[in-house]
């Protein structure tokens, strides 16, 4: 049996497949199908210090091989999470990643401080949510914004800190470098790409928020490119996501440089997608006689 374990910033995952934030709630919704213990980890729904209502519906639009969402970080706030969801999650035998967001640097800091007191395994700092008016992506699109945030948060963060990057930027590599130099333990990418759909009959945007974040297979080539660029420039681990739909995609993303992958939108059409990807990886490694999944990370050989 091939060794599927990977290590991200000191945390060992039993396999490199993590469900992506916002696509797996707080983990209870898929337990009818399979136990969470099948997953390397779960990145939980984006959380803020205070409860947030999120944006008005419609919050989803279909696109060719993809979708837009404009949920806008609806969540019950960190205290509710700690009280109502964390105890359950702790019994599930998988790595727990809290996805942390806010409107101001102070918001992020007190959230990270609070999360650091809990039993979650890792914090994924979401400075790339395109669906909120304040905060979110505002911090993620400039080196100064991103570096400033990581620097501030780092002081309060007692957990491995992974920073989630936005693809809506000219130069993702400099932003990744900036967060690395301020002490991020890992980066994850990509969050969603900003898009829009219009209903030509009503002449109104499909999303009530007008614009939303695009994800799904459509964005996969962009994600692979960004992961490749960032992994080549950084020394900390990169967790890759964006459009991963099947095990071949996970292999491709890992060859590009991802130490682990996250799976989001694919679950909406195939709720088994993350589990199938774990199984597919296992089978692939055996077929190819590769001992450890980590042996494929970053193995793409670029043309000169």
């Amino acid at each position, binding site marked *: 049996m091939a060794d599927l374990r990977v290590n991200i910033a000191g945390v060992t995952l039993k396999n490199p497949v993590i469900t992506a934030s916002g*696509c797996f*709630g707080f983990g209870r*919704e898929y337990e009818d199908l399979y136990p969470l213990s099948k997953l390397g980890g779960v990145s939980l729904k984006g959380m803020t210090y205070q409860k947030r209502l999120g944006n008005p519906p419609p*919050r989803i639009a279909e696109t060719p091989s993809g979708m837009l969402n404009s949920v806008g970080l609806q969540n019950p706030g960190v205290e509710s999470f700690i009280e109502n969801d964390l105890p359950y999650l702790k019994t599930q035998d998988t790595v727990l990643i809290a996805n942390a967001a806010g409107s101001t640097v102070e918001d992020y800091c007190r959230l990270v401080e609070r999360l650091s007191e809990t039993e979650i395994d890792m914090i994924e700092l979401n400075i790339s949510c395109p669906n909120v008016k304040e905060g979110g992506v505002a911090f993620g699109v400039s080196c100064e914004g991103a570096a400033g945030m990581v620097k501030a948060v780092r002081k309060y963060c007692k957990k491995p800190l992974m920073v989630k990057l936005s693809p809506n930027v000219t130069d993702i590599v400099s932003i990744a470098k900036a967060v690395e130099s301020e002490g991020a333990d890992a980066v994850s990418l990509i969050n969603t790409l900003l898009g829009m759909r219009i209903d030509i009959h009503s002449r109104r945007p499909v999303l009530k928020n007008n614009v939303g974040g695009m994800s799904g297979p459509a964005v996969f080539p962009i994600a692979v490119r960004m992961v490749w660029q960032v992994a080549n420039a950084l020394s900390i681990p990169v967790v890759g996501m964006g459009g991963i739909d099947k095990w071949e995609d996970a292999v491709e993303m890992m060859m590009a440089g991802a130490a682990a992958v996250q799976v989001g939108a694919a679950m909406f059409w195939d*709720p088994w997608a993350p589990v199938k990807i774990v199984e597919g990886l296992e089978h692939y490694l055996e077929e190819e006689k590769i001992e450890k999944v980590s042996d494929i990370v970053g193995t793409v050989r670029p043309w000169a």
Partner: protein
Amino acid sequence: MQYQQGSFPIVGRQEIADGIYDFKIQCPEMAEQAKAGQFVHIRCPGVTLRRPISICQIDRAAGTLRLVFEVKGEGTRNLAQLRVGDEMDVMGPLGNGFDLRKTAGKAVFVGGGIGVPPMVEAAAAYGAKAAAVLGFRDKSRVILEEDMKALGCDVTVCTDDGSYGRKGLVTDAVKELLMEGDVNAIYACGPMVMLEALATLAKEYGVRCQVSLEERMGCGVGACLVCACKTKTKDGEENYSHVCKNGPVFDAQEVVFHG
């Protein structure tokens, strides 16, 4: 509540009105679990996201679910192309379904257009104690009238243009029933304006009213939070609930219709 996901054979298929299809799928365990008002989430050929369709009827003995849907866009168009013997990739049963506790008196089942299908299984529970009020644009759109009659319901059909049944809105017919008295509950599915009008009527007459809502969906199980609808608690606090998990059936008094 348990749901499952799998590919299930289509054992029945009929076009029951222009562009409205009536499918039956063989899925014994899902049929066993299902209740009126729940829905299934279907992977349609050629499109990315699943499509939610209400459960129209449950036949536990035969192990089948009946689904009645209208062709709206690409997803339902491609779904309608499937034939008997093909498989349908379905998740379900999903959502909460109607609370069909029987009380003294009658219940009124109100369906507007393609909101009629979920009313069939719901009304079945009340049989002869059910009154059904079904509204359609015109005669050509009338569906499931005979099915409701076969359950023993007292059926009133309304059409917008009077080309069949009574002319006018379902709410007028419902109001008459309420005025007659002996109505204890209203169950409804259809356009938001209709549901809102029914909610107002129900409040006025002091009867319980449950409405089945629609919203664009992603996961269908409560994980992605896209299918939001605004609801309020008794003390007026507003929040976004989720049609797929907290619904699709809501107590009409909880729904914020202009959310």
